[in-house]
C-alpha cells in the first residue's frame, strides 16, 4: 500500500521540490524565464494528455485554444481594463465557450478525421489572428500589461511561483480525472466507444467534456505565456506550437501523469543545449524524436509509471491469449 502510494506520488513530489528550489538554483533572469516556460508547456501538455492520452481523442487544434486564451486575456485587460484575475476568468470562459461550439460538430468524427478537423480549425484561428488587424494587431500582435495582483506589480520570481502553482492545480485535476470514475469512463471511450455506450457511458458527453477541459487548460497555458512574454502574437496558434506539443507528448509519455513535465523540460531545454549546432539542430531534434518513438514508446515517464491506472501487477500468461473484440465484421 505505502509502496504503491510512494510509487504514485514520489515522482510528483520530487518535481514539486525541484520546482520550489529552482529559482534559487538558476543564474539570472533568462534561466528563470526558461524554468517558467517549462511549467507553461507542462500545463499545455497536460491538457493534451487528458484529451489524447486519457480519452484517445486526437486534436491538433490545442494551439488554437492556447492563442484564444492569450488573446482574450490581453484584450480583456487592454479594452475592458480588467484586473489580472478577471481577465484570466474571461479568457477561460471564452476558451470554454469556443470549445463547446467547435467540439459539438467535430467530435462526431474520430481518429485522423478529428485530427484534420481540429487542425483546420486552428488554421482558421491562426488566419484570423494574422488578418483581423484591428482587434489582434496582426503580425505584431498585442502588448499585455505587466502583471499586477491585488495592486502590486509581480516580480519575475512571483510570476514563476504563480505559474508553478497553476501547473500544480492542473496536475491535481489530472490526477483527479484519472483516479475517479471519470478516468475509467474516458479509458472506456478511448478503447471502444460502442462497448462503452452499451454499458451506459454517455460517450458524447464525456468526449465533449474532456475536449472543453483540455481547451480550457490550453487557454490557461496561453494566458500564462502571454503574461510572461508581455504580449501575444499569431505565432501562438502557429504550426510550430503543435509540433512542440506533439514532441512534448511523445517524449514525456502519453497517458501518464508526470510525462508532460518531462516532455516540457526537454522541449524547452534541449534546444538551449543544441543552440551551438545551428543548422544541425533540427536534424538532431528529429533524430532524437525518432529514437524515442522506437526505443521508448512509453516516453520518459514510461520508465517509472505505467500509463494505465494501477501500479503494475503481474501479467501471468494465460493458457492462450485470446483476441480482443471484433473477430466478426
Amino acid at each position: 500500500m505505502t509502496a504503491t502510494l510512494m510509487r504514485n506520488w514520489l515522482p510528483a513530489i520530487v518535481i514539486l521540490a525541484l520546482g520550489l528550489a529552482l529559482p534559487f538554483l538558476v543564474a539570472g533572469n533568462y534561466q528563470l524565464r526558461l524554468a517558467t516556460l517549462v511549467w507553461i508547456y507542462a500545463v499545455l501538455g497536460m491538457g493534451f494528455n487528458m484529451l489524447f492520452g486519457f480519452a484517445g481523442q486526437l486534436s491538433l487544434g490545442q494551439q488554437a485554444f492556447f492563442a484564444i486564451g492569450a488573446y482574450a486575456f490581453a484584450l480583456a485587460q487592454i479594452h475592458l481594463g480588467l484586473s489580472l484575475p478577471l481577465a484570466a476568468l474571461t479568457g477561460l470562459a471564452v476558451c470554454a465557450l469556443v470549445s463547446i461550439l467547435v467540439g459539438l460538430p467535430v467530435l462526431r468524427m474520430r481518429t485522423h478525421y478529428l485530427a484534420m478537423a481540429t487542425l483546420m480549425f486552428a488554421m482558421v484561428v491562426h488566419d484570423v489572428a494574422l488578418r483581423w488587424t484591428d482587434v489582434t494587431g496582426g503580425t505584431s500582435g498585442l502588448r499585455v500589461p505587466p502583471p499586477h495582483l491585488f495592486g502590486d506589480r509581480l516580480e519575475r520570481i512571483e510570476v514563476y511561483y504563480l505559474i508553478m502553482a497553476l501547473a500544480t492545480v492542473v496536475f491535481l485535476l489530472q490526477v483527479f480525472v484519472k483516479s475517479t470514475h471519470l478516468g475509467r469512463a474516458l479509458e472506456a471511450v478511448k478503447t471502444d466507444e460502442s462497448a462503452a455506450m452499451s454499458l451506459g457511458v454517455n460517450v458524447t458527453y464525456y468526449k465533449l467534456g474532456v475536449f472543453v477541459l483540455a481547451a480550457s487548460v490550453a487557454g490557461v497555458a496561453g494566458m500564462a505565456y502571454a503574461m510572461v512574454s508581455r504580449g501575444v502574437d499569431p505565432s501562438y496558434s502557429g504550426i510550430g506550437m503543435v509540433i512542440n506539443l506533439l514532441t512534448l507528448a511523445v517524449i514525456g509519455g502519453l497517458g501518464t501523469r508526470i510525462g508532460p513535465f518531462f516532455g516540457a523540460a526537454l522541449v524547452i531545454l534541449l534546444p538551449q543545449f543544441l543552440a551551438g549546432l545551428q543548422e544541425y539542430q533540427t536534424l538532431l531534434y528529429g533524430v532524437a524524436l525518432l529514437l524515442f518513438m522506437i526505443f521508448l514508446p512509453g516516453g520518459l515517464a514510461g520508465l517509472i509509471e505505467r500509463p494505465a491506472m494501477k501500479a503494475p501487477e503481474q501479467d501471468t500468461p494465460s493458457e492462450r491469449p485470446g483476441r480482443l473484440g471484433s473477430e466478426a465484421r
Partner: protein
Amino acid sequence: MLSIDGLRSGYGKSEALHGVSMDIEAGTVVTIIGANGAGKSTLVNTVSGLVPVMSGRMSFEGRDITDLAAADIVDLGIVQVPEGRKLFGPLTVEENLELGAYRSRSVKASEIARRRAFVFELFPRLAERAGQRAATLSGGEQQMVAMGRALMAQPKLLLLDEPSLGLAPIVVDRVFDTLAKLKGDGMTMLLVEQRADMALAIADFAYVMATGRIVANGPTDAMRADTRVQQAYLGEAGVFEG
C-alpha cells in the same frame, strides 16, 4: 417484459430491420437464430439504443423505450454482452467489471462488492485473474469477463450477442453451462446465436430471422421439430427467404 412492435431500424439511410415484432416474458430465455447478416445483431443493438429506431415501438415493463438513450436503457435494466466481447483491453479484469457497474455509481459500495462476489462465484477463474489486463486473457476468459461485466449492472434482461463466437467447443460448453445456471436463477435472457442447436436447447422460445425479418417463431420444442429449422441448422440457406 420486453415487447417490440413493427420495429424498423438501420444504419444511416439503409434499413436493416424491416418491421420486427417480438415479445419476451419475464423469466424466460428467448433465442434468435438465423444466418449471418439476418439482422440479429442489429436487433440487439437497437434494443440497447445503439442503433437508431426508424419506426415501430419498443416497451420494457410497460414503459416506452423507443427513443431512450443507451444509458437510460441500461438504467432500466437491459444490459448487453456485445458480439466479439469488446473488452477494455488495457484495463484489468477488475476494472472491466467496475465499468459494468458504471451506471450504478449511486449504489452502495457493499452492494457493488456483493455483485462482484457473485460474478467471481460464477467465474472463479476471474477472481484469480482480477489484476490481470483483459487483453492478455484467453478467449474463453474474455467471454467470462464480458458476461461478468454485464452482470455487474444487475440486469433484468440480459442480451447476449453470439457468446460462443470464436471459442473452442469445450469453452462453448462452459459458456452455455453458465447460461443454464443464470436461467436457473430466473434471469431473463435474449440470446443471439449461430450455434442454433445449443441455443434451442437452452431457450424456451425461438425466433428465426432472415434478411431483417422474423420468418418463424414458436416454443423451442416445436421449432426443433420443424424441418425447415432443421435444414437451417445445417446451413442450407434460402429456406426462409422470400
